[in-house]
């Protein structure tokens, strides 16, 4: 019980840090909103979907799932920054000398990160509603959409941990998030893959973000099927990445604890 209470105290601390830091709010909440509006209102009408130029509303329906993932991916940079700051400023060391279970320390960063990413995703979703986005989803699909969002947030949080513990400064800690963003840009998130040059298209079709954007889109458009390739690929990617980065995070945290 005491560990849960401590987990809540530390999680609240990190959430408060994020929500009171102007730079974090601009990057993780306002920037995805700006990008969404830019793509929908400036570029959207010039992008062909299914061979014809889309209307603003059609493009919004196509691209919003991708922007939900972008909002979360931008949050992962700040997960890494917060962990790295606690490391370099000695706060992790102070926590290690307090009567706190070790899992609570990193667990609070994971929990705060997932909550913050869901807040960021919700803001983009609400903005989408205001802009005219209307999803077509059942209660079951909505529950699955929430689950996929939580799993995606959890996965990219786990990816952030080894980078944040290894990096010697906050500037380098968040660098990995550009890779996730680059993967989202080279996927079906914002434009159909049909017009991409062949090697890029092959890469886009076979990297995790395309499947994840696809499953999010399927769920929000009521096209979800348990046998769809988007679902199966997403499942494999998420489970694989969670196992790999859980191991890497654990290993790096153990190495960090020994070197303290």
């Amino acid at each position, binding site marked *: 019980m*005491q560990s849960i*209470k*401590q987990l809540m*105290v*530390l999680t609240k*601390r990190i959430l*408060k*840090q994020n929500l*009171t*830091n102007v730079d974090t709010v601009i990057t993780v909440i306002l920037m995805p909103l700006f990008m969404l509006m830019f793509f929908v209102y400036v570029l959207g009408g010039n992008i062909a979907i299914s061979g014809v130029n889309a209307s603003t509303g059609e493009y919004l329906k196509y691209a919003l799932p991708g922007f939900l993932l972008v909002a979360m991916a931008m949050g992962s940079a700040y997960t890494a920054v917060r962990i790295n700051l606690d490391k*370099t*400023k*000695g*706060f992790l*060391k*102070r*926590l*290690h*000398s*307090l*009567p*706190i279970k070790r899992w609570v320390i990193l667990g609070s960063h994971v929990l705060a990160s997932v909550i913050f990413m869901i807040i960021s995703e919700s803001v983009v979703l609400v903005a989408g509603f205001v802009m005219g986005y209307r999803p077509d989803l059942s209660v079951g699909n909505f529950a699955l959409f929430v689950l996929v969002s939580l799993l995606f947030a959890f996965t990219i949080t786990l990816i952030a941990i080894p980078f944040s513990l290894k990096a010697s400064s906050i500037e380098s800690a968040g660098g990995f998030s550009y890779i996730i963003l680059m993967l989202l840009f080279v996927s079906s998130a914002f434009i159909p893959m049909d017009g991409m040059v062949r090697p890029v298209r092959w890469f886009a079709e076979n990297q995790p973000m395309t499947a994840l954007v696809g499953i999010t889109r399927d769920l929000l458009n009521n096209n979800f099927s348990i046998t769809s390739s988007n679902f199966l690929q997403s499942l494999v990617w998420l489970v694989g990445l969670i196992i790999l980065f859980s191991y890497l995070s654990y290993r790096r945290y153990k190495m960090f*604890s*020994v*070197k*303290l």
Partner: protein
Amino acid sequence: MDAITVKHVKKSFGDHSVLKDMNLTVKRGEIFTLLGENGSGKSTLINILTTISLADDGDVQILGHPVVSDAGLIRENISLNSQTVTLDEEFTGYQNLLIIAELRSLKNAKAEIKQISERLDLTSFLNKKVGKYSGGMKRRLDIAMSLLGDPEIIFLDEPTTGVDPKNRVELWNIIREIRDSGKTVFLTTQYLDEADKLSDHIGFLNDGKIVLYGTPDEIKQNARQFVQINVDSSNMNLIDLPEGMVVSKNNKGTNFIIDERNTDMCIKILINENVSINSVVPQDNSLEEVFLDITKLDSEGN
């Protein structure tokens, strides 16, 4: 019961042996200062004592409890101040203190925060954001965080580094007050005058071991003693003292600092060479001289 006992502790990182055969006792209710060069293993020892990391070998007990089996119990009774201040600058002083109070599950958190803030003269700043605090105030708040929960032993790792002289003296008073309230303070510092003024006992850590231990006065008395020999300047050219015997000499060659044990031999040599000796005066050792002498002897392989 002693506050800290360390017996035959060893710790290596890869091939690099940091603590070789560490033995140490710190009594309850005293200020103990650990001195040593950068990289001598001070932080490694603090990490072991504060249950952050484990020794490879040896026995460490805090308040009679072994660190390996009773880490949880020990953490209830200790606190650690790192070399860097561990404050959240976006939060107020009160919010920083409250986080630690909640992590320690203090029942009367507000009352304890109020009492510690008054003791450390922080009350008027508590509701201001820490980002607006001066360096000295940040240090005081950092120490206040360590005092929450009334821990028995407070580890202060270089608490005055980068602090201006006025705030340094204030921090010294706070450290003395902590000791006077019955707590044990385990201190490391770069400032030897600080160690001299504050410590009840000092340990010199060198080459992975405690090579000198005692009160500041005992250390100064028991360390290698030096004698200054002053000779008449007209005899300068005649002087031919063996090089190994002279610790230092002035530019004019009229003042020699030698190891006290070589005094008789040096005087004999000077007399044989018909050099007029003006004075032979024992030197007062400062901690700085003792520290430099120990590290010099070590680098010479003695």
